[in-house]
């Protein structure tokens, strides 16, 4: 019964949405009074399911996060934590008790009321024994959850967790309704400014504005939103040129960006993502167990040449596992600069005057084989023979590299924001063990003072830039291409997303 009602409600909303669209078009044709209220947004990868709390692919959050689903807190376009369904919070001095004051009068798209019991349900679902949340570790520190009243939520932690608040802003931590959670994978129901209308698999997801959106401070100006999935860059470019899509926030092929330069009705906006392209090394394996070898390899590589060859010169070189988006970022690319002679000398000093030979396991995504081919040529200059072994991503890569750590070197873009702590994880595929580094990461979690955390993150970056457990290459650019009249899309991507609540068409 319930399901029938829901689908009818969605259908009515869809009709309302399209009515709104047609009236808007009517106005638009009658004169330039009203701006367009529909948006077609192109994405390269189709999400696998639409529940960001049930599977890890970032595409899920890029469709639903902040549009359909919201969290207790959110991450804004600067990467900062801002209140959302929790309007305020207090953290106890020992960092063990978080008391959230929740928004009142919030309902899910199916009419279910959001309150502290629902928030407790969402968190318990994410951390419980049957949880299939890809970021279950976020909630590991939570000991108990209390709901003294409908608008108060209290989290008691086992140990301080400095990143908890930030993590609660992630797509994996959004609030879901107890009645609708099981169906969220195919019919997402959240509290956000847009409701789910339809998913034509392999092609598009359609959303419509939520007329009952609780947050009156946000003026949502789009009425309908269509996410279209276009895996091929050529087709993306064609769709942009013909107006088939209005915006592609993450265009797939840097080599085609130039072709938009002479199109007056399109703008190109190049920002930063959180995608750190790094060539991880198995630090437990010879010769990578010797820091000097890793440093020599790093110095044999001119990052700019890699960026030129692999990504048409777009992208920012990095000296550590950290991006310019991230708080406390320091540019450490000069720490081990490109210097062939020094690289050779270091390699000889480490006992390999004849050079070394190893294999790089390379996923099939365009950036990986291209970067590997450029690196291969540069490493040959210092007598290093690197053999490229294509490794199917994700299946084989996850099994061989991530889980079994059976590899010499690999190259992959790490997508998770602020994940410098992966170098302190044990086990993790780098097999990098540095107690000093791990201690810093522990300290970050032990404090809740942002300034102190920033300073600690700087120390962490510096250690990595010196130790190079992985060759730090570049941050992928966020290649935005969209209609010149479209405003409000994010320029950078401190967290993978397409937040549409502030997007509008200029009149």
């Amino acid at each position: 019964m319930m399901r029938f009602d829901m689908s009818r409600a969605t259908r009515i909303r869809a009709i309302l949405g399209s009515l709104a669209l047609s009236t808007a078009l009517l106005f638009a044709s009658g004169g330039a009074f009203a701006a367009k209220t529909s948006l077609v947004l192109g994405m390269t990868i189709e999400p696998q399911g639409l529940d960001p709390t049930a599977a890890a692919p970032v595409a899920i959050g890029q469709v639903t996060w902040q549009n359909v689903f919201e969290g207790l807190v959110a991450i804004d376009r600067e990467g900062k934590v801002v209140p959302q369904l929790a309007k305020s919070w207090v953290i106890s001095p020992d960092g063990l008790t978080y008391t959230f004051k929740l928004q009142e009068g919030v309902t899910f798209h199916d009419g279910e009321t959001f309150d502290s019991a629902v928030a407790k349900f969402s968190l318990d679902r994410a951390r419980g024994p049957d949880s299939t949340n890809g970021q279950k570790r976020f909630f590991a520190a939570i000991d108990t959850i209390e709901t003294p009243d409908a608008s108060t939520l209290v989290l008691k932690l086992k140990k301080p967790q400095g990143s908890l608040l930030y993590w609660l802003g992630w797509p994996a931590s959004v609030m879901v309704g107890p009645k609708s959670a099981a169906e969220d994978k195919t019919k997402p129901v959240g509290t956000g400014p847009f409701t789910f209308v339809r998913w034509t698999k392999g092609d598009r997801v359609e959303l419509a504005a939520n007329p009952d959106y609780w947050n009156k401070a946000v003026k949502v100006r789009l009425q309908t939103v269509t996410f279209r999935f276009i895996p091929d860059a050529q087709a993306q470019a064609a769709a942009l040129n013909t107006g088939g899509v209005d915006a592609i926030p993450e265009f797939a092929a840097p080599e085609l960006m130039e072709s938009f330069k002479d199109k007056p009705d399109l703008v190109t906006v190049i920002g930063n993502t959180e995608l750190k392209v790094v060539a991880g090394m198995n630090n437990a394996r010879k010769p990578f167990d010797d820091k000097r070898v890793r440093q020599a390899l790093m110095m044999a590589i001119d990052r700019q040449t890699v960026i030129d060859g692999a990504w048409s010169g777009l992208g920012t070189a990095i000296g550590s596992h950290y991006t310019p988006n991230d708080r406390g970022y320091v540019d450490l690319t000069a720490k081990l600069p490109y210097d062939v002679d020094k690289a050779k000398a270091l390699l000889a000093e480490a006992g390999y005057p004849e050079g070394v030979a190893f294999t790089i396991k390379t996923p099939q995504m365009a950036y990986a084989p291209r970067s590997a081919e450029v690196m291969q040529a540069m490493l040959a200059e210092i007598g290093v023979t690197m053999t490229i072994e294509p490794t199917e991503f994700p299946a084989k890569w996850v099994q061989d590299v991530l889980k079994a750590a059976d590899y010499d070197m690999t190259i992959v873009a790490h997508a998770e924001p602020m994940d410098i702590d992966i170098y302190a994880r044990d086990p993790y595929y780098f097999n990098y063990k540095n107690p000093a580094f791990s201690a810093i990461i522990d300290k970050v979690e032990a404090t809740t003072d942002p300034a102190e955390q920033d300073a600690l993150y700087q120390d962490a970056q510096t250690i990595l830039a010196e130790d190079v457990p992985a060759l730090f290459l570049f941050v992928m650019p966020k290649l935005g291409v969209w209609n010149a009249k479209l405003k409000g899309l994010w320029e950078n991507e401190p967290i993978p997303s397409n937040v549409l609540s502030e997007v509008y068409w200029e009149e």
Partner: protein
Amino acid sequence: MTGLILQRILSLVLTLLAVSAVIFLVMDVLPGDPAAIMLGTSATPETLEALRRELGLDQPLVLRYLAWLGGVATGDLGTSYTYGVPVAGLIAERLAVTLPLAVFAILLSVGIALPLGVVSAARRNGPVDYAAGLLSQMFIAVPGFWVGLLLVLVFSVSLGWVPSGGFPGWQAGLAPALGALVLPAIALALPQAGVLTRVTRSAVIEVMNEDFVRTARAKGLPRRQAQWRHAVPNALVPVVTILGLQFTFLIAGAVLVENVFNLPGLGRLALQALSQRDIIVMQDVVLFFAALVIVMNFVVDLSYLALDPRLRTRA
């Protein structure tokens, strides 16, 4: 005859069973854990366990195979790991692209091959025949996906007449949807047209040499009429047969061509399911293709039996 057909049907079912077992085994031993792929790089071991339980991957191999087979027999193809929706619906959605594409391509290839083959046969060993022969040789030799690339190069990149790929969906209307299939269908049709031209040519020549045509000709039926009234209808039988047998290649071509043109068809679904280790989808799609091929071969065999009684003993 009926006994023979029953025997054929039995062998068809046995073949399908064997195919299903092989597919299931291969998919099972593939490296890569579907749960680990879905949960990403930060998943904890207990989350992986929970997801495996949810997907039924913790069951023993034989049970999973029987469950799958039982489901398929009753029309339940299972639920996609990644999309979370019934696979039957997924396949139906994709089939709405691949099937029209294949039919379009077959029509095109017959439309090219039939006139070319008949003219070739009529002007046998003349310059037209050799030209047509060379043309069909070239059609056979070019990879369909390359033809696709060249068509995109000419008609979208240079001339800008059509989008270089993608599919607007049938809800966008018949014209835009068919329009999106034109270039892919041509790319898929050309190699088939090459093969069919040669078959048509030799079939027409063969029929023209048969006694009943010779008799008709001797009685004064003009050559052209004899050709169109007798030779072409009879030559259609081998043409249709070859079409049936070429089906495998049409499918193979479709996987590649869908990739060039970004069509959300079955081939792309298979590629995607394989890379995401959406094993249940992959099993169903491969079994579906296999069943199509087997049934197609069965129909071809049947038509042979019906047409040529001599073959009944050979079977």
